[in-house]
């Protein structure tokens, strides 16, 4: 994923050569990391809309979020920015705004009444100093639980609602011994994603925003946090020996094949179910575990627009911003991407059962939770990731782990 990091610079330069001599034409060079299959089909929705609007889309796809991000940022800093660049919804463009490198799109947002149709957390994540600097284009739920219906039925279990339900089912599956109870991909980011799912599901909204948002050191040392840590570590009992290093999609396939009961993964996992010809709510189920106080962790993607000197480029940027959020584009994009639309006023009948479920979560203000990326800068997320991964993979105790997290939160200042 983050293989060859410096792609960054990369695209930076590639664009120079191809910049238009004719300033009247509306051209948009867009850096993104959607390269394969469904991802590419999704970004094509934007490209087609832009072409229809009379523009020329210049595609700079670089696989790997870190690659693409750094390509775009390096170019922007060295004075040769792309027209638009993809980022994750969150803190990733803080420094770009501070450095006055991004164009604000507040006018377009007001014109389209974005604030009226988007979740508040998403609006907040795209706003700096009172102005919108990013176009949120989708919402990815990060803490979905995917399960194989037949496997759960075989032990007489229904869809779990809380982590306690889930643990009971996992116990049954383990006692039965026919399948691996929990499909898991033991890579750092997924270890963190699983931890996050437990933190929100067991600790609730207060724990979530307290640790990631307020960086509350005392909370990290509390008994409640340790309870989260204990539940998380308990999940290791339900994971198979081959989990470390596994790719997330291979874990998903274990659920698809009925080799495993369930998996915690973002809604991009749906792409694997679709590719294998499975039907939601028939072959597999999807749900979000919560203790009742907030539960749906919303991540997603945004596009930002580096400041341009050329008015034609600015025009292209504003056109892009506008068309990315039209209801039609939104629904077409979400269909291909597996995410859900960022607007709550689109006709969702075309979406599958799981996406509709996601729309219902998002519609409920109490359920909306901002993702870790929205609450904390990458350096802190990374440091937490190391701590979580160490805890999961070694014999570290919950007490030691809580002390470690407290130290990480403290040093983040």
């Amino acid at each position, binding site marked *: 994923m983050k293989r060859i*990091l410096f792609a960054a610079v990369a695209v930076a*330069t*590639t664009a120079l050569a191809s910049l238009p001599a004719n300033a009247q034409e509306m051209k948009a060079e867009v850096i993104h990391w959607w390269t394969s*299959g469904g991802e590419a089909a999704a970004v094509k929705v934007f490209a087609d809309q832009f072409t229809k609007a009379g523009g020329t889309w210049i595609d700079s796809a670089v696989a790997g979020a870190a*690659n693409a991000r750094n390509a775009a940022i390096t170019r922007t800093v060295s004075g040769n920015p792309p027209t638009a660049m993809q980022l994750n919804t969150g803190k990733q463009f803080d420094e770009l705004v501070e450095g006055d490198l991004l164009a604000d799109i507040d006018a377009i947002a007001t014109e389209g009444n974005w604030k009226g149709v988007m979740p508040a957390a998403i609006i907040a994540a795209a706003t700096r100093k009172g102005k919108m600097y990013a176009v949120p284009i989708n919402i990815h739920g990060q803490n979905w639980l995917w399960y194989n219906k037949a496997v759960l039925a075989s032990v007489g279990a229904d869809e779990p609602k809380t982590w306690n339900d889930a643990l009971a089912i996992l116990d049954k599956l383990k006692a039965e011994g026919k399948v691996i109870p929990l499909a898991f991909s033991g890579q750092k980011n997924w270890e963190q994603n699983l931890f996050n799912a437990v933190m929100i599901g067991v600790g609730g909204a207060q724990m979530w925003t307290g640790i990631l948002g307020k960086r509350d050191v005392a909370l990290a040392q509390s008994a409640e946090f340790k309870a989260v840590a204990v539940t998380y570590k308990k999940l290791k009992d339900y994971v198979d020996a081959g989990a470390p290093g596994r790719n997330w999609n291979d874990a998903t396939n274990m659920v698809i094949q009925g080799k495993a009961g369930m998996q915690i993964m973002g809604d991009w996992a749906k792409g694997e179910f679709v590719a294998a010809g499975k039907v939601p709510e028939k072959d597999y189920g999807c749900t979000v575990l919560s203790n009742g106080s907030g539960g749906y962790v919303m991540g997603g993607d945004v596009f930002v627009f580096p400041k341009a000197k050329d008015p034609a480029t600015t025009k292209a940027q504003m056109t892009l911003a506008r068309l990315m959020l039209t209801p039609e584009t939104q629904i077409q994009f979400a269909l291909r991407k597996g995410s859900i639309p960022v607007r709550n006023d689109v006709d969702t009948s075309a979406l599958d059962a799981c996406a509709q479920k996601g729309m219902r979560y998002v519609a409920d203000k109490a359920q909306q939770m901002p993702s870790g990326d929205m609450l904390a800068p990458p350096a802190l997320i990374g440091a937490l990731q190391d701590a979580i991964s160490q805890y999961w993979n070694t014999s570290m105790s919950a007490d030691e782990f809580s002390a470690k997290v407290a130290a990480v939160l403290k040093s983040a200042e």
Partner: protein
Amino acid sequence: MSATALSSGRPRRISPARWGLYAFILITALYFLLPLYVMIVTSLKPMAEIRQGNLLALPASPSLAAWVKAWTSACTGLTCEGIRIGFFNSLRILVPSVVISILVGSLTGYALSLWRVRGANILFGAMMVVAFIPYQVFIYPLVRVFSFTGLGQSLATIVTIHTIFGLPTMTLLFRNYFTSLPVELFKAARIDGAGFYQIYARIMMPMATPMIVVAVILQTTGIWNDFILGLVFAGRDNLPMTVQLNNIVNSTQGERAYNVDMAATLLTALLPLVVYFGSGRWFVRGIAAGAVKG
């Protein structure tokens, strides 16, 4: 001198030792071939079969579909033309980069080994240190240097970059080789009045064939498999094949098609493989040339 004549002096026996030798070769060959086997069978299976997880099983119904897709229609962003679009770009980067980096590296190695130059050891030492640094660390400042000087991205730029990053290793290779040659040869040429470049071109390089073969292997591999430098410095029209490979293999949240991944990797590795297999004859010839020096 032919290869046969060359090794005619070696002792040769048909004995248990010989069996041991072949057993050793067989076992090591298996270790080397196992991953290749997995890649090939995986590339011939449909995804449904790969999901079963029988890694070493032969494909139930082998199909070249993944290969065709990888070459002609796999998506790497909005363009769905497979990895073939980068092949000729990679070739155009590879040939001049290999030739020039070997020329510059061998010349530097030659100057540093046989000619007593003040500060030669310091220069060589500094280059050795540089050889150890992950070159990704240099890219950020280098991009800024290039954007300052106004040098755009082009074939010339990427060739220069490959020459720069190949320099320490190439210098090391040739310096060590030239140092191991009998110094009398060099002295005799000096006494005969041959100049710096004459000795390099007429005596040293012809004797360096074995090292040139090794250098070609090293550089071909490094340059062909390079992704990041090509992406940054080659410019939009010259993006190498590995950029497409990366886009196919390293998708972030898209579904994974391992058969296409494997086929794409094997296709990308094809050229260095051909060079290796093809260099066999040159290898022997080069080695024969090296043996003359005795």
